[in-house]
């Protein structure tokens, strides 16, 4: 009985000691210097080493989180609070910059810009239309309105309004640039929110020709140039261009006499808050009915 107890305790303590010493020595001898933030983040992780995050272990996950390769929320074991703590910890490091949002440089929705033909392809995406004679719209620069940008936005910051125009919700937009990349017509630009004077047109056609294709096209009439402070706006290739280096001079004044409303003063959201169609009808969705 007593012998049993001694043996048990002896063996366990022995094993414990032995390996503790081995590991302690190894820990010191074999340590490699790394970004101290990795340790910090790892410290805040659950250490379950369960692989649920898809990474081979907590440390590797921490490395990737610090390197911004994966999202911290991938760790399903951490509580929400812990995740926020880590995000906050890393967020402080990230620093701050003026908030930017994506702006659409076209206002030619279904009502304003008319089409020459009907798209009959089965691939109903903007990219798909764009390779087919540049899309059915008369204006070769304008938005195709099939919402590739809406699909690609991970933050639900975009929806198609009922005019078929993708509308950015500034509060949700993180300026990730995905929509800028996907749009085949290059209609998005990431702008600081302080830029409020925006020309919502990219058509390089002159005056009446432009207007014949889209009722909100810039006709290069020059009124905004005249109404704005010197040098703020100029006409280049039949299009009004705002010189944002002089952004501090801008005011809604310049937009007042625009005959087509191609130049606008944007506070917050770009297009009217019409009744909206949220568009999680990604391409995937189109094929996939949830079962």
């Amino acid at each position, binding site marked *: *009985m007593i012998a049993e107890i001694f043996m048990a305790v002896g063996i366990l303590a022995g*094993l414990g000691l032995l390996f503790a*010493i081995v590991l302690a020595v190894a820990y010191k001898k074999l340590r490699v210097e790394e970004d*101290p933030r990795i340790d910090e983040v790892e410290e805040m992780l659950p250490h379950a080493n369960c692989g649920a995050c898809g990474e081979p272990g907590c440390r590797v996950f921490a490395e990737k989180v610090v390197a911004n390769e994966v999202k911290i929320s991938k760790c399903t074991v951490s509580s929400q609070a812990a995740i926020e703590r880590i995000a906050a910890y890393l967020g402080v490091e990230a620093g701050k910059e003026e908030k930017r949002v994506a702006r659409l440089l076209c206002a030619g929705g279904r009502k304003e810009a008319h089409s020459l033909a009907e798209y009959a392809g089965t691939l109903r995406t903007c990219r798909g239309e764009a390779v087919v004679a540049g899309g059915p719209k008369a204006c070769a620069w304008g938005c195709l309105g099939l919402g590739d940008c809406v699909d690609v936005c991970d933050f639900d910051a975009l929806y198609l309004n009922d005019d078929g125009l993708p509308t950015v919700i500034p509060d949700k937009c993180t300026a990730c640039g995905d929509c800028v990349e996907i749009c085949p017509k290059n209609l998005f630009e990431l702008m600081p929110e302080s830029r409020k004077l925006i020309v919502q047109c990219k058509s390089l056609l002159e005056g009446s020709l432009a207007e014949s294709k889209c009722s909100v096209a810039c006709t290069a009439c020059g009124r905004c140039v005249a109404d704005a402070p010197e040098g703020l706006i100029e006409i280049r290739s039949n299009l009004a261009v705002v010189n944002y280096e002089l952004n501090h001079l801008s005011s809604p004044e310049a937009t007042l006499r625009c005959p087509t409303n191609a130049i606008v003063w944007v506070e917050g959201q770009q297009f009217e808050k019409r009744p909206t169609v949220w568009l999680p009808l990604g391409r995937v969705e189109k094929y996939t009915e949830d079962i």
Partner: protein
Amino acid sequence: MEEKNIQPVMAQELETSSFRLISTLGLAGFFSGLVLVGAFLFTRPIIAANRAQALQEAIFKVLPGCASFRTIELREGRLVMVEEGAPEPREGEEVRRIYAGYNDKGKLIGFAITGEEPGYQDLIVAIFGYNPRKEVVVGFEVLESKETPGLGDKIMKDPAFLSNFRALAVEPPVKVVPKGEKKKDNEIEAITGATISSKAVGRLLEKSLIEWRPLIGEYWKEYKKEGD
């Protein structure tokens, strides 16, 4: 420059904790050992009793009429009866044992033998009773198997199958035949849809008998000599 700030702190932490961590682990091991020994000592008799009871039940089942049993061990090529109260063999020690069953009059009526054999899924471990006088198998019970429920596990439940072992002759060697074709005493009628498991049982009996029958034969001779 930040690094510099961090470095000494970490080094220091390591320095101081080296002793502490070893001692923490040592202590944890110590207490855990205590708890474990306690739990072990407390439950050991109960667990042992459970085991013994399970064993006894199995032996009684495969040796009808059995009222008590003694453990017999294979030592140096001979079967030797294990003394009462001898310590259990340690885990990991290789001992080969069978059990001798006695009826209520204290007469040796047969032996319970365990054996194992790969079946349909995994090893089948079973115990069976062997009557050396008549040279027949008198009972059979599966101890462990992973055979398919409803199919292969009939080898442990199906009365029809188990009835094969009421008096199964072991000479000529046991043979498995399809259902409905049993003609001789040494044949086991297979379970339809589970021929593999049935055959595994057959092989299990055959192998164990080849191993143990000569030994039992000698033991039996000696016993009879003594008895007579």
